[in-house]
Structures are given as C-alpha cells and as structure tokens.
C-alpha cells in the first residue's frame, strides 16, 4: 500500500502531527507555552508606525512562490503576516503596496488586504492599486519591485516569503529608499542576505511561527509548542543515529529506508 521508502516518513509525520494537534488542543484549553520574543515580529508595529510618521507607504513582498508546491507554506506564512500588517496600515492610515508575482496569489492577497481595511472601518482609504500583479517572470517582477521601491520612496519594506537569488536587490533598493526592513524566508540559500541586509530577520521556522505569534490566538500559539516537540523528536533521532553509526550499525538507516 505504501510507496517504497515512505513508511518511516509517514509514521514520523503522524507522530509530529499528533504532537502538534495535541499542543493545539492544550492551547485551546488555555495551557499556553511561554514564547521567546521574536524581534522581527515585535518590530512590525514599529515599522508601520515609522511609515505613518514620515507619510510614506509600506511595501509588503510575500515572495515569489505560488500557493501550491514545495514553497507554498512560505507564501501562506507571508500572507498570514500580511493580514496583520494590512490591519496595522489601515489603523495608522498608511498606504500599503503589495506586489505579486504569481497570479494565483493575487486574489488571495487582495481579499486579505481588503478585509484588513474593512476590519478597521477604513475601506475607503484603501488605494485601488494597493495589490498589483507585476510579472510572472522572476526578474520582471524584481525590476517592478525595484521601481516601486524607488518611485514610492517606501518607508518600511517587508520581504516575508519564499525568495531566491533576487533577495539582495530587494534589500539594497529598500536601503536606498531609507526604509526599515524586516525580512524572512525558509529558503536556506537566502537567509544570509536577510541577516546581512535587513534590520530584523525571521529565520526559517520563525516565519511560520510569526503568523501565530501576532494573532495571539490560543490554538495557533499551541501549535508552536508542537513544533518544538517535533524538534525534540528530531534531535532524539539524530543522537540515536550518531550512536548507532559510531558502532557501525545500519539499523536506523535501514528502518528509515522502509
């Protein structure tokens, strides 16, 4: 019944999912984990506030990945945070610009931003070109974003999602515009650019946890504990693997290949 080589992965997925669901249920009952401060997330209201002070817009870049595929989770994570940022922008009367590369993300982003403004009772303040489809080509999109950053002189630059080689371009353009920059991705090959160039960075899982963090929803916060429990399982497997490998045993490797 199982595809060859996936049994162990399936069982592990079930174990981790059970831990996360258990944590979500505990969270709903009010048993919440104590979360460490994620500076990048704490800085979001500061960034929007700064944009309000200088009267310049906020740019929110949800990355260039689609809503399907291996990188979709990062797009969803970015859109979660967009929901929060758009409400803040509506609250402080700041313009928001959301450039989009994947057409399927466009209606979702439009709905999120519209709802953010509606929730604050400021739908009339939403500019009609807030969410803009730029180009399906990676560097066509990049050149569009660079142009917007420069022309609109953005005050806050959020780059939260899956990005690839074009990351330094967004960051340098934001720096040139004098923007405060908050970036985050789970793409390992780009993290160094965010760390080097942004004022605040969300690394890897912090991007996924950020949406839960800002919502302060009990169930979502509970799921963050589940992630950490999953890490304990992973560390346990690593230790077991190192021990067995030291005694030249292939037991765990063979089990993982089932």
């Amino acid at each position: 019944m199982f595809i060859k080589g996936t049994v162990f992965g399936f069982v592990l997925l079930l174990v981790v999912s059970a831990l996360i669901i258990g944590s979500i249920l505990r969270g709903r009952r009010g048993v919440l984990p104590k979360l460490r401060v994620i500076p990048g997330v704490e800085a979001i209201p500061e960034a929007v506030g700064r944009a309000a002070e200088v009267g310049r817009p906020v740019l929110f870049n949800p990355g260039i990945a689609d809503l399907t595929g291996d990188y979709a989770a990062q797009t969803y994570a970015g859109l979660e945070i967009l929901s929060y940022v758009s409400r803040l922008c509506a609250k402080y009367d700041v313009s928001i610009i959301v450039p989009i590369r994947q057409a399927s993300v466009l209606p979702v982003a439009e709905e999120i931003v519209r709802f953010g403004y509606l929730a604050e009772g400021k739908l009339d303040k939403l500019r009609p070109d807030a969410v803009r489809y730029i180009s399906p080509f990676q560097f066509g999109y990049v050149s569009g974003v660079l142009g917007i950053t420069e022309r609109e002189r953005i005050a806050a630059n959020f780059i939260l999602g899956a990005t690839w080689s074009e990351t330094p371009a967004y960051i340098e353009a934001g720096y040139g515009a004098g923007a405060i920059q908050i970036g985050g991705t789970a793409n390992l090959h780009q993290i160094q650019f965010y760390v080097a160039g942004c004022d605040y960075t969300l690394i890897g899982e912090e991007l996924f946890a950020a949406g839960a963090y800002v919502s302060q929803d009990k169930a979502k916060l509970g799921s963050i504990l589940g992630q950490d429990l999953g890490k304990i399982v992973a560390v346990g497997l690593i230790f077991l693997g190192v021990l067995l490998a030291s005694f030249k045993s292939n037991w765990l490797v063979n089990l993982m290949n089932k």
Partner: protein
Amino acid sequence: MVLSKQLGQLIAAISGLVIGLSGFINLPAVKVASQELLNWGVVLGAFALGLGFANMLKIHGMKMFRGSGSERAFSLILVGSMLVMVVVGLVQGIQSANYKFLYNSFLVPLDSTIFSLIAFYIASAAYRAFVARNIDAAILLVTAVIVMLGRAPVGELIWSGFPPVTDWILNVPNTAGQRGIMIGAALGAIALSLRILLGIERSYLGRG
C-alpha cells in the same frame, strides 16, 4: 457568507489531505484524485493569469490617463509591450519567428541584465553589513573573507590553505547549521499546514 467560509475550509482540508496522502500511499484512487486536484490547480492558475492581466490593465490604464509624466510613459510602454506580445503570440503562435525574435531580443537580455545587477547589490550590501561591530559580526566578517578567498583562484595564490579551510567551513559548520534550519523550517511548515487543514488558519480566505 458563513457557508462560503466553511466550504472554502472544507475544500482546503480535503484537497490537502488527498494530496498529502498521495506522497505516501500507493492506491490508484488516491493517485488519480491527487492528480486530478493538481490538474484543477493548473487550470485555476491559468485563469488566475487572466486575472493578473486584468489587474495590470486596470492599474496601468489608470496611470496612463491620470498619472504624471513619467508614470504615464512607463505605463504606456508596459501596456504596449504586453499587448504586442499577446497579439503576436495569439495570432502567429508562440513558435513563430516574430514571437521568438521578441522573446530572444527583449526578454532574455533584460532578464539576464536584472540578474547581473545582483552582483553589484551584493558588493554594496557587503560594504554596509560586514563591519565588526560586535563579536558575532566579527566572526561573520572573518568567515566571509576566508570563504571568498577560498572560492576564487586568487585566494590559492595568497595562501594554499584557503581552499581546504573553505571546504571545511562549507561542509561542516555551514551544512550542520543549514540542516538544523531545514529541520526547523520543515516542522514549521507542517504546523502551518495542519493549522490550515484544521481550519484554524483562515487568513488565506481573507478573513483572518
């Protein structure tokens, strides 16, 4: 309104479950259902492209008529080139000589040019960011210099030890760190996916 919200969540949950299971289970029904859902996704993506086209026409159309000098010009160029490619592609086909000429003469060099700007941006970012303000930044600086010298032929001329040290840095601490981040990111993605499948996360429906 309530029904459409719950319907959206139900569709997301069922689709996610079927496609997730298809990565592990070898049942024909699961495979077929998963492939069908993925095909629907491709079709939806194609329709979404039409939406993107309409969005661009709306925004740039507004700028062409109501924008200031340079905004008007840029929007005119954008809409004009977009319409030319669409008309040539539809009328003559994407295998036609004219379409290939436009693609190879405009799109390809422009794509490469924007990508090549990244090198310059990296240089200016390095000038700004690689300053040893504290111990962490100092470690970053020293490591970056060693790796840059190890990867370039000129580094070996300066000291033959740069390449092996670079290889060690990339293969040992760098790979270890990346694997750790990879595991954390994968767990984060599982947690987010579960939140979406269970209907706890609804921001993608636009309703937070």
